[in-house]
């Protein structure tokens, strides 16, 4: 445990990407965590007298077209965005890993059938999937999460399948098989832990893709329900006030960029681990 701490300490000092990744991610998480307990204003409270105000002491990120405090809304919106991204990656990883591991390990007819479905899903733009899901269940962040999650399954499944295929014929697996280890145990105890490195980086990339995809879908009108808004939805709502009140566009925009940047720096930092 101590060596772990030491390594982190060392990397924080010497690994620039890791350091900045930590700093930025902690800042964003702070914004979300503080928002759980305290926000400067109620994020839905409207004020007709303070519509579209710029940055001020009273409103550090200005106000929106309903006179709502942008900082409070960003705090709440980051929470929604993080939830969507985390949920998406969770669905993608869990389902993708199970599917990929089983098909890769057993192969055969099952593999063929499932891979054809995965191919079909892959060929089906995620935005369309989201549109279809939203048309059925209505607009909302849970639907969005579901849509993105499903859209993320194929890529995870393919990565895991490829890795499992690679590991299947390795010596240690052969050895274990000779010792009579069950298939289930083989997959989950022997093979999967060996591909956690690949999985870890896919998760970090997936997380970023989820944040960006959420923003894109919100822009196309498939986002969270008003009066609350995810960061992506805020950004697209703010676009039309760009000339009059740039701070309303820039603040959620910068927070999204930082959120993604923090995680990709972390990923980069880990890949350059010293």
């Amino acid at each position: 445990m101590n060596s772990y701490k030491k390594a982190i300490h060392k990397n924080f000092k010497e690994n620039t990407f890791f350091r900045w990744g930590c700093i930025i991610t902690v800042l964003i998480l702070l914004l979300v965590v503080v928002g759980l307990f305290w926000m400067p204003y109620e994020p839905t409270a409207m004020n007709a007298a303070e519509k579209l105000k710029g940055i001020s002491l009273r409103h550090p990120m200005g106000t929106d077209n309903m006179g709502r405090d942008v900082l409070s809304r960003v705090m709440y919106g980051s929470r929604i965005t993080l939830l969507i991204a985390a949920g998406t990656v969770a669905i993608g990883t869990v389902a993708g890993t199970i599917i990929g591991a089983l098909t890769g390990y057993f192969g055969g007819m099952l593999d063929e059938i499932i891979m054809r479905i995965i191919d079909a899903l892959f060929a089906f733009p995620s935005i369309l999937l989201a549109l279809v899901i939203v048309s059925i269940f209505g607009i909302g962040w849970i639907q969005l999460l579901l849509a993105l999650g499903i859209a993320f399954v194929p890529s995870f499944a393919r990565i895991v399948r490829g890795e499992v295929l690679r590991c299947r014929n390795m010596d240690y697996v052969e050895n274990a098989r000779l010792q009579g280890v069950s298939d289930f145990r083989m997959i989950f105890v022997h093979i999967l832990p060996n591909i956690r490195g690949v999985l870890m980086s896919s998760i970090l990339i997936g997380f970023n893709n989820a944040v960006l995809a959420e923003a894109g879908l919100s822009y196309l009108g498939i986002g969270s329900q008003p009066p609350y808004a995810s960061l992506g939805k805020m950004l697209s709502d703010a676009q039309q006030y760009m000339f009059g009140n740039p701070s309303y566009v820039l603040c959620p925009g910068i927070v999204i960029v930082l959120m993604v940047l923090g995680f990709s720096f972390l990923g980069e930092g880990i890949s350059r681990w010293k």
Partner: protein
Amino acid sequence: MKRGSFSRRISAILLMIVMTTLTIALSGCSSDKAGDSSKLTVGIPQDIDSLDPHYATGAGTKEVLFNVFEGLVKPDENGNLNPAVASEYTVSEDNKVYTFTLRDGIKFHDGSQVTVEDIKYSLDRNAGTDGSEPLISAFSQIESVNIVDDSHVEVVLKEADSDFLTQLTVAIIPAANTDPATKPIGTGPYKYVSSSPQENFVVTRFDDYWGEKAFIKDVTFKIEANADAVVMDLKGGSIDMYARVTSQQAAQLDDNFTLYEGTMNLVQAMYINNAEKPFDDVRVRQALCYAINPQEVMDFVSDGAGAEIGSAMFPSFTKYFMPELNDTYDTDTAKAKELLIDAGYPNGFEFTIKVPSNYPQHVDTAQVLSEELKSIGVTANIQEIEWNTWLSDVYSDRNYQATVVGVDASTLSATSLLARYVSDAGRNFVNFNSPEYDEAYKAALANSDDAEKTEYFKQCERILSEQAASVYIQDLPEFVALNKKFTGYVFYPLYVQDISKIKPAE
């Protein structure tokens, strides 16, 4: 190495392609928006849903086709019906037979003469006289359309209706045109040139127009699917006019633009499903009316612009509009709470407002309403839905609790706004049910005396207000931004854009 030189050659070709592209892209990039006032580009918020005027349903389509097609009569900016394809008309004593005289020498865009056969064809097509369903439900009243002679046509009704003229704005199209859905031919001041899905609808001036000819020769209606980009497109010069800018967008425009302020001619309301609990109780509906403040909605949604309404009628129908109904429910939280207690909801209740996501004003309005209703302990959740889901779920299946939309009038008749509240009307999506209303409405239709008729319609409006059929809010403001190169925009009491009146400034 052979492959090496091959890949090098490929990359050389690639490089050349891109360089050429770049040169084309960047050369002569001087923006070509230099002022040319013989050409007008009008931004429109949605695509044309049908080039066949009889199948065009969207308000956004009708407002454009207004420039291409005309009916026997045509509305003007003051809300009068003027003869168009017909040069004059007479109505029989019993309000059952309408006789029209064909305008002498009037031509279709393809140069052919309009004939009485064309008129009969156009009206029959809408009335479904061949046994199919009528395209316009009001046309089910038509008994027959008869050709009297070469220049006269009579429309015979099943029942007397003194108001039927308002329906006869329906487009007259040539019977000889076998493909009206792709080759639109009309008699209006502009003729169709081309259209491209999601891109544009191009028209040019019709020089043989019977009336006052249009000023601007070439007009392109450009589809602005991305409402957020309107300010940018106006400023950048890719559109000269946009009729639906919001007050906040208007504030971002510079002085290259003239802003015309009018109203959209819509009845914006939180429509409530009267058949659904707890809204089947009139006291609950009234409580909602007392709790909300239309002025506050206008302040938030459009910086205070807009016109308050108290019933299902908007101000530009001056003959029918009753400003006094705005005061039926002055905002009074205490009163609202009292009514809720009487109705058995001392702790309020929770309901969902379904609102079409493609109308930002309605979504914003719903958000303000939701905040306002908190003060009487009522929780209103907002659910944004797609427009087509709205059409089928809310409008057609009536599967909703409340919704915020604007209802427009398709003709200049009061019936176009009031008919839907009759208990058994197919379009009565609020499930309003009042025998008193049905009676007043029927009396209005049957009456041939204009003053009495109007009085009955007003009675209808009063009942809607008192019974709180819905929470009536406002007629939304309409800001029209027009580049200063042009002038002459006029508002109509209907949802139309009359481009023929716009002329180059100096």
